[in-house]
């Protein structure tokens, strides 16, 4: 399997980001992983890339997978989703989004289902990552 272009981890929980970062590193599915503490930071980052303000070198890369927590300060997962939908179609079309959360609240699952977004419950495991890759990145296989 070809490595992914990059992964964004959006979660206000540092330890969780750390553990997920470690898991993904050990699975060796990408060389580029960035962590964000809330939706706003992640969106600003994506916006500058989509508008061509940032050079795609070093720290800046366009991710092919975003793992998004729901409950975060400043801007939560659903607010981030609403803004993300407004980015250009061409930018969004090869980016996969997945909600990653402890929430089992019916309301949250229903909203996720309505947005056709993959919904993963914590903790993230190699199995869950593998399933996600199989579902969305089959054509990456060489």
């Amino acid at each position, binding site marked *: 399997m070809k490595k992914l272009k990059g992964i964004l981890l959006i979660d206000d929980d540092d330890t*969780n980001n750390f*553990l997920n970062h470690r898991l993904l590193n050990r699975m060796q599915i990408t060389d580029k992983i960035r962590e964000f503490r809330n939706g706003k930071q992640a969106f600003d980052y994506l916006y500058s890339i989509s508008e061509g303000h940032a050079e795609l070198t070093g720290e800046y890369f366009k991710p092919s997978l975003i793992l998004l927590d729901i409950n975060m300060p400043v801007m939560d997962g659903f607010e981030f989703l609403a803004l993300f939908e407004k980015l250009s179609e061409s930018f969004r079309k090869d980016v996969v989004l997945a909600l990653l959360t402890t929430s089992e609240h019916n309301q949250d699952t229903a909203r996720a289902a309505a947005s056709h977004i993959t919904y993963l419950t*914590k*903790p993230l495991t190699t199995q869950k990552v593998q399933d996600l890759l199989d579902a969305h990145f089959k054509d990456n296989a060489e």
Partner: protein
Amino acid sequence: MLLFQISSSVNAGTPAGSGPDGLVLVGELFVVTAYLLVAGVLFYLALKRDDRERRVVLALFGTIALMGGAVHLLEFWETASQGNFLLILRLVFGVAALIAAYLLFRAIPGLLAIPSEKQLKRTNIDLRAQIEEREKAEAALRETQQELEDRVQKRSAQAITANRELEREIENRKRAEKQLISKNYELIKKNADLDDFVYYASRDLKGPVLNVSGLVDAIREELPPNNPELTQLFTRLDDSVSSIHRKLNNLAEVSRIQKPVEEVDLKKLSFQAVLEQVQATLAQSIRESDAKIQADFSAAPEVFFSRDNLYSLLRNLLSNSIKYRDPQRTLQISLTTRLQDQYLVLEVKDNGMGMDLSQYGQHLFSLFRRFHDHVEGSGVGLYIIKRIMDNNRGKVEVQSVLGEGTTFLLYFVNHDQDTGKRV
């Protein structure tokens, strides 16, 4: 004047003081005078009477007397002058008297109809007596009326008092009801706050717990393997973390079932289908405990309920039976349904350890109360069952004999009969 004329004519016609002729004349004169006086009296009376019948009669008598007098008066002329004329006059007077007599005769029935004074008196007395009686009756009536009025007044006074008391009572009850409603509202709000608290606490604690378990795994991976000391420590760490995790999940479930079920979540559910789901979830523990599960839902195969809730009920009941089975005998669980009054009853009976309800009964459904320590449990299952049934206007009953088994009876509101809105 008449008398003067008569006396003058008599004086003129007859020489005074002359023998027996003179005496006859004097006698005649008296008779005429008497007749005329009587006639005058009668006419006078006729004039004065105010009832027509008697006036006529008196007038007729007067006429007869007048005519009689007139005839006698003519005697004087008869002697003095000859006379066909006088004879005719006599005849006329006679006829007039006769007519009067005839009219008098005709008036007899009318006169008879006139009551006599005696009669009148009697009638009067009778009438007076009647009047008296009536007055008495009236007085009696008035008295009765007064009494009645008094009674009515008294009664209305009583009624008014009673009414006022009732109004006061109603006022009191309304006030009490208002207080109850506001208390109830407060309780509902507090309950909701508590539910929210439990929900958010369990959710927010979940993240750190997951982190700890992830970190433990990471540490395990970083450390050199094959260290028995470390292995034992990690096993205990894993147990502790999973225990915290399980308790948090229970809390989350408690807060979830506390939330009222939405109308749209209610569906006709097949007991058999949900039971099969539960059996699939509990497959491992059913296999390990070698439980024999028998189900007969033929009497009432379906219930109008929330799928999550029915699933939760059956799962908790079955896992309860499995947990508290008697190790001396094979566990038998039987599930049946039936219709009873306005309820659909689900009976879940096992031959497990049973319990002493007189000792534990009142705390059986309390949150986090546990009565056995030989098996893993959280003290949440029965509480969840009770809450679900309460939230759906149903109830739970338990029958149990120590050493023989336990039967749970779940009473669902039968929506086939009761289509009323849920509260």
